[in-house]
């Protein structure tokens, strides 16, 4: 491959590409349930502290965002720089529907999730229609993010402007207790991982891998590239919307910074890049590691960002494929040496 070709195929050069996904169900279930079991033990350890549980819930929410973004970017190579905006459509949408329009909690969450999915699908459709490349898709979705952020700030009567607003709905339910929200978001994460995992081992997964590795070849082999991209964007955006919505109700409050570009998109991208773009468990590993690091250096205040920046530079220099693909090839190499 020449440099140009690597550039054109985009994600396969950035991310870790798994050669194939195993068809057997245990190979999918065991790692997902294993991760879920480990994460389920966290409240036993940190459950006494309200602050730590809030941090953990945020970490899990980021894992959910990263899975949704991974489906869009890692699987089909669409650089959606509007993770926060799509999550915000879920969060603000459901909060406004429930609080200001008086809809039931579940109905408002479903509606907001569907809205986020449809908007993600629409963005993907536009990108496919105009055959935008990675960079242009990124810029269009970035503009969408900025529009959304400015609408949040501008439509003060609906959104509460700069400070956001407190959500009344669900104020007395289990959503505001200390530990139940953690298991709610964890369950959501497991569902997301299973959906993504099942997609990967189905025909859709083959189509994703084909179009990510070589778009033109996939098209020639009969894969409708645009359609699969739109499917991925619909599903991924709905995931982002649902995660954003549930997170809003567990916090009891929404504000522009909850879904800001710098707060959500940048972090999600870094977590995914650390874990391994395109891998199943990479998003979770990235989210757990970065939430932990963030908590460890919380004493540094604003200087945290410096540490963060240094980590990201180191990451892209020494671990460009992410931790899971790097570990995977290490293990494969060790195994090959074991065999005579």
């Amino acid at each position: 491959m020449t440099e140009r070709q690597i550039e054109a195929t985009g994600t396969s050069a950035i991310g870790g590409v798994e050669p194939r996904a195993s068809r057997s169900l245990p190979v999918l279930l065991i790692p997902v349930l294993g991760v879920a079991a480990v994460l389920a033990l966290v409240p036993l350890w940190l459950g006494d502290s309200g602050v730590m549980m809030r941090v953990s819930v945020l970490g899990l929410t980021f894992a959910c965002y990263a899975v949704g973004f991974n489906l869009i970017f890692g699987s089909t190579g669409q650089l959606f720089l509007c993770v926060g905006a799509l999550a915000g459509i879920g969060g603000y949408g459901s909060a406004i529907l429930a609080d200001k329009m008086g809809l039931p909690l579940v109905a408002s969450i479903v509606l907001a999730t569907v809205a986020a999915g449809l908007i993600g699908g629409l963005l993907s459709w536009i990108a496919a229609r105009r055959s935008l490349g990675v960079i242009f898709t990124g810029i269009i979705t970035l503009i969408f993010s900025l529009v959304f952020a400015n609408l949040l700030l501008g439509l003060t009567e609906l959104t509460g402007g700069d400070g956001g607003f407190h959500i009344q709905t669900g104020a007395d339910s289990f959503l505001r207790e200390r530990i139940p929200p953690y298991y709610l978001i964890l369950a959501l994460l497991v569902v997301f991982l299973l959906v993504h995992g099942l997609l990967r081992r189905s025909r859709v997964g083959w189509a994703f891998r084909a179009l990510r590795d070589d778009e033109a070849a996939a098209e020639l082999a009969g894969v409708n590239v645009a359609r699969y991209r739109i499917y991925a964007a619909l599903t991924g955006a709905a995931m982002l919307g649902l995660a954003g919505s549930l997170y809003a109700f567990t916090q009891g409050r929404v504000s522009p910074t909850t879904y800001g570009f710098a707060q959500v998109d940048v972090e999600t991208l870094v977590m995914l890049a650390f874990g391994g773009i395109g891998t199943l468990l990479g998003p979770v590993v990235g989210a757990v590691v970065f939430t932990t690091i963030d908590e460890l250096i919380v004493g540094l205040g604003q200087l945290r960002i410096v540490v963060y920046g240094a980590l990201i530079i180191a990451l892209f220099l020494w671990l460009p494929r992410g931790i899971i693909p790097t570990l995977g090839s290490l293990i494969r190499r060790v195994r090959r040496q074991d065999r005579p």
Partner: protein
Amino acid sequence: MVRGGVVASAITLVVLGGLFLFFKKTTLGRAVRSVIEDEQGARLVGIDPQRMLRLILVLTGVMAALVAVTRSLIVPVSVTAGFELTVWALIVTVVGGLASVSGAVLAGIILGIVSTVAASTIGTFLSLVILLVAAAVTILIKPSGLLGVRE
């Protein structure tokens, strides 16, 4: 403030003029443009693309620092201004047309005027929304940008 604006404009005009001359008239400027247009072709006539890319990055850094200086003549400097400027630079570049200096200048002037006028007439947030949508529509209708070369 007004005097700062005049000084900033003067500096910008001189630098832009210099940049145009550099790209149009000097051998080095032509070499840079040739790499942007056709990397392989540039290599064939003996231009090192890596060197030119390094030069472009250095120029970018110098220009960005200059923008920060001229901007500080008009508005107060703040820590978080960087992100906003980055986003604006990205949008202006794409609207004007990638790899087109004159396009970037034209798009910068148009977007700058529209944003300033709109902000004072219909409020900051909604004017920004309109401006961003306009930029998105421009990109979608003409991906090569206002003055970009159609491939």
